């Protein structure tokens, strides 16, 4: 297997899907001639030309609205947001059009769009550029929400997202674009709604998505080495649909859960999962379900303080030790 960067894994997914299906189109700010702000679409414009890879003006509402309209007519647009934070500008298009059209048309019209881009804090770009909107979007019936932690998952999930007939919100992470991981040469797909047990364990279940899954893995490594605690790490990969069965089976086994989440705590993805756990496996819990989330405040700009805002391995370890 080849060891490639997260951004290249995505790039491969786009190239393969563009070649496979003539309806697939990439759009977004500087995705074409400039190779993308984070070089995720590098070389694709040169390879596939103006009709398949399209630069747009800085106008999220307009180009996402255009993509939704195009998808309703049968195209499969893959639209980049330079920052997921600015989905707010196009929120009406996403929430009221993309999410509702299949329902409101009585199933006659699909909206097979993928909206993608980085959705993370921790890069010293300030409060307006550091949102993690997966929970805002997962709250809307009609939208699918995906978050990839590794190059392997990024490629496999992206290909599935492009082929899906519903709007898929794909959360990437600028801090992960340069991370390398093994990706098979041959084609593969990862189904939506299937979580991945990144590490098996028996003492406590750590549940995370996106980069927090890697934080959880690091914490699990330290817990094993320093505290003799065998943590299981579940990477959700798909937030909606949610793989409840994998989560529940793990907690039934370990009897303890700590959620690691770069969302803000209030109504975060982890809050949803915590509610589900107490509802469905209450009698299997031997400790309260705990969460490690971002600090509940706008993204901190000061570089000295900013690293403390997102969950760190030591934060996870402290929570685990309080219940193990």
């Amino acid at each position, binding site marked *: 297997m080849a060891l490639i960067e997260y951004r290249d894994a995505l790039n491969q997914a786009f190239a393969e899907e563009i070649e496979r299906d003539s309806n697939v189109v990439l759009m977004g700010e500087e995705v074409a001639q400039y190779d993308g702000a984070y070089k995720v679409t590098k070389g694709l414009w040169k390879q596939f030309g103006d009709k398949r890879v399209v630069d747009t003006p800085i106008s999220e509402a307009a180009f996402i609205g255009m993509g939704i309209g195009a998808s309703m007519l049968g195209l499969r647009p893959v639209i980049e947001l330079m920052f997921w934070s600015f989905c707010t500008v196009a929120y009406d298009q996403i929430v009221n059009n993309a999410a509702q059209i299949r329902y409101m048309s009585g199933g006659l019209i699909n909206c097979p769009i993928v909206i993608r881009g980085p959705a993370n804090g921790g890069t010293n770009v300030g409060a307006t550029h550091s949102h993690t909107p997966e929970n805002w979007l997962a709250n809307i019936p009609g939208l699918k929400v995906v978050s990839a932690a590794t190059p392997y998952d990024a490629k496999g999930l992206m290909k599935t997202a492009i082929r899906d007939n519903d709007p898929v919100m794909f959360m990437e992470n600028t801090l992960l674009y340069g991370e390398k991981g093994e990706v098979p040469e041959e084609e593969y797909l990862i189904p939506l709604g299937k979580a991945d047990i990144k590490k098996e364990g028996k003492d406590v279940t750590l549940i995370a998505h996106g980069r927090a899954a890697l934080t959880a893995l690091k914490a699990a490594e330290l817990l094993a080495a320093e505290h003799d605690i065998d943590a299981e790490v579940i990477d959700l990969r798909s937030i909606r649909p949610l793989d409840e069965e994998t989560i529940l089976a793990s907690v039934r086994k370990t009897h303890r859960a700590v959620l690691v989440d770069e969302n803000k705590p209030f109504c975060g993805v982890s809050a949803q999962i915590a509610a589900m756990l107490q509802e469905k496996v209450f*009698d*299997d819990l031997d*400790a309260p379900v705990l969460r490690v989330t971002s600090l509940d405040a706008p993204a901190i700009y000061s570089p000295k303080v900013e690293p403390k805002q997102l969950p760190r391995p030591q934060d996870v370890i402290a929570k685990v030790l309080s*219940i193990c």
Partner: protein
Amino acid sequence: MAIYIEMPKLSDTMTEGTVVKWRKNEGDKVETGDVIAEIETDKATMEMEAFDDGILHKHLIAAGGKAPVGGKIGLLLQKGEKPPAEGAPVPESPKPKAAKEETAAPEAASRASASKATSAPAPTPAAKTGERVKASPLAKKIAKEKGVELSGLAGTGPGGRVVAKDVEGAPAGGASAGKASAATPVAAMPAGAGDQKIALSGMRRVIAERLLTSKTTIPHFYLNIEVDAGPLMKFRAEANAASETAGGPKFTVNDFVLKAVIAAAQKVPAVNASFAGDSIIQYANIQLSVAVAVEEGLVTPVIREAQKKSLREISEAVKDLATRARSKKLKPDEYAGGTITVSNLGSYGIESFSAIINPPQSLIISVGAIVKKPVVNAKDEIVAGQRMAIGLSADHRVVDGAVGAQYLAELRKLVESPYLLLL
């Protein structure tokens, strides 16, 4: 430095205490070791000594008021010192109304109302004992499956929470596992007009808890015999006559029964034991608990190393313990650590009964009154006899039926041939 005087923990089971009386008034100088107040625990009234020097600035709990263990009851200041400005001394959640509900303690209530209205007693209990046990859902599930009573377990989880591993190691508490602990308590009918609501005293709370634990977690079984008390009555009359002539004390029937219970336990040491989860502890010494009825309930003071004591020593010990129990002068260690209990309701005219085991003991002997009744003697004649019923309640995890029977056989022999007690 301002020092708050806190309600001390004066017994293992104490969760709150009552300030019966302040021995130092507000403004009095206090030196370390001075008795500053009398505190009533669930079992006794004890003197409370000062741990620090200073001026007793304020009684935060008035005489008659209650406070949880650790609750602030007074404020000690150094000479010339001002009381802490912020949140000036506040009694632990005072509830003047509750004093009126204390129907059982009119004296305390009147004393409280005699003192300043602002420093009303704080009878709100700490709500610790008798409250719900903190346990994880999984621990509760396992406990239900195993029939383990959670209240008897020590929680090792955060904040003392009972977690799964605490239950997994615990012994099942009942023959019909699962059913026993699943029963939910039935709520009492609410008090209506003319009904009296009597606040639980510390002692009543402890009795309620311990006996519920005993009856729901210890597999009791009961054996009963009726013995010929004639020889004992005769022996006692002779012994008392001889003792009187020699200027000695008189012995009660109970003194002889206690002596017999002790001697029988020496013959059958398996009954002098406790169930300890993964083992049974058989004790070297017989620490004999004697049930004594007191105004508020009952206490079971202990005759230490009873097997080493003569009849006279036992008689004196019982008299002393009972007297001090009734006047609440027992120290906590005097009713802790018993290994066998005797409960005698003979003086109340009860012929026979079966007592509830006093945990963590395995044996309690219930002694009834000596009753004249017709008996068939060895010659098959019906004659007037003096009979005494003796009941045995035992923890079946420790004592089996045959062992209990063996014990009662020894006891019968000793009561029916009391001269053996001297050997």
